[in-house]
């Protein structure tokens, strides 16, 4: 097995940390954008860009409530995202076992 087996969308430090953090929550739980940003210590712009890439792949979904300054965004891992992370860690384990 080679590193090509690792999902390239997940195999990026920031996106890997986003998915692993969300996977620590129970299935169906959401996390506010602010708390996620504080936990990962990313800039808002950087986090948004990574979230959009993951959302485009249906690995997570975002919900926005309210308007303007008072708007709140929350993020949740989808079943597809959890499965993709499980496959990624399994591939990583297999890869490391072969080294």
């Amino acid at each position, binding site marked *: 097995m080679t590193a090509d087996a690792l999902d390239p969308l997940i195999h990026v430090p*920031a996106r*890997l940390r986003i998915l692993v953090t969300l996977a620590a929550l*129970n299935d169906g*739980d959401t996390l506010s954008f602010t708390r996620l940003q504080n936990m990962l210590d990313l800039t*808002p*712009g950087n986090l948004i860009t990574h979230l959009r890439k993951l959302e485009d792949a249906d690995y997570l979904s975002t919900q*926005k409530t309210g308007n303007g*300054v008072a708007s*709140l965004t929350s993020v949740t891992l989808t079943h597809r995202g959890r499965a993709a992370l499980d496959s990624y860690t399994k591939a*990583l384990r297999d890869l490391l076992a072969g080294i």
Partner: protein
Amino acid sequence: MNGSHDTDETGTIDEGGELDPRQAAALVEQTTIQARRQFAPPPLGAVLGAGVFFFGYGAVWWSMRDQHVYSGPAGWAIAFLYLLIVASALVSRRFLARATTGVGGRARRQMAGMGAAVAAAGIGAWVVQGALRYLGVSFKIVYGVYGPTVPLIALAAAAAGFAAAQEKWPELGLAIAIIAIASTSTFFGPLGAWGLTGLGCGIALLVYAAVLTVWLRRPPSVQR
């Protein structure tokens, strides 16, 4: 949710450089441990709970230890027990609020449901306690044996149901241990009910705190 940021701003992406498999595995482990610590209430909450049983229940037991004929615990002991319960509840609530800040969805709904179930179980048990006294059951049984054990068993039973439904095995084990200890202690009269329940539940909470500490530090098995 406690978010305050709008996500309309656009950003430039920082991919963060190349990751080799070992670095990726280390990142998964490190991030998992950090996330668990952030989302779980700290084991210190369980240690505080153990303190309530050791010192609160212990104080009541201490105030009754020389009674040959049951006359009830001293007022200071009951006041001390309630003081510890209130202080512990306030600190635990603070820990829980910190852990769940920004977490929403199913977790919030489940927590509200669990709160309602536990409150109903506790209130039901206390109402029965009042009814038993009203029906003429002795102080020794109502306040000496039933009081320190049955409401606790009811609260633990409600919590056990939720722990099982969420597959939270350490919490389920703790709730079952509390039920077993409190119910067994009723065979030993008021002194046993207060003393054994205090000692046993305090130890059970310390064991739970130790299990939680190990779990929070244990990395997921990516590199093994």
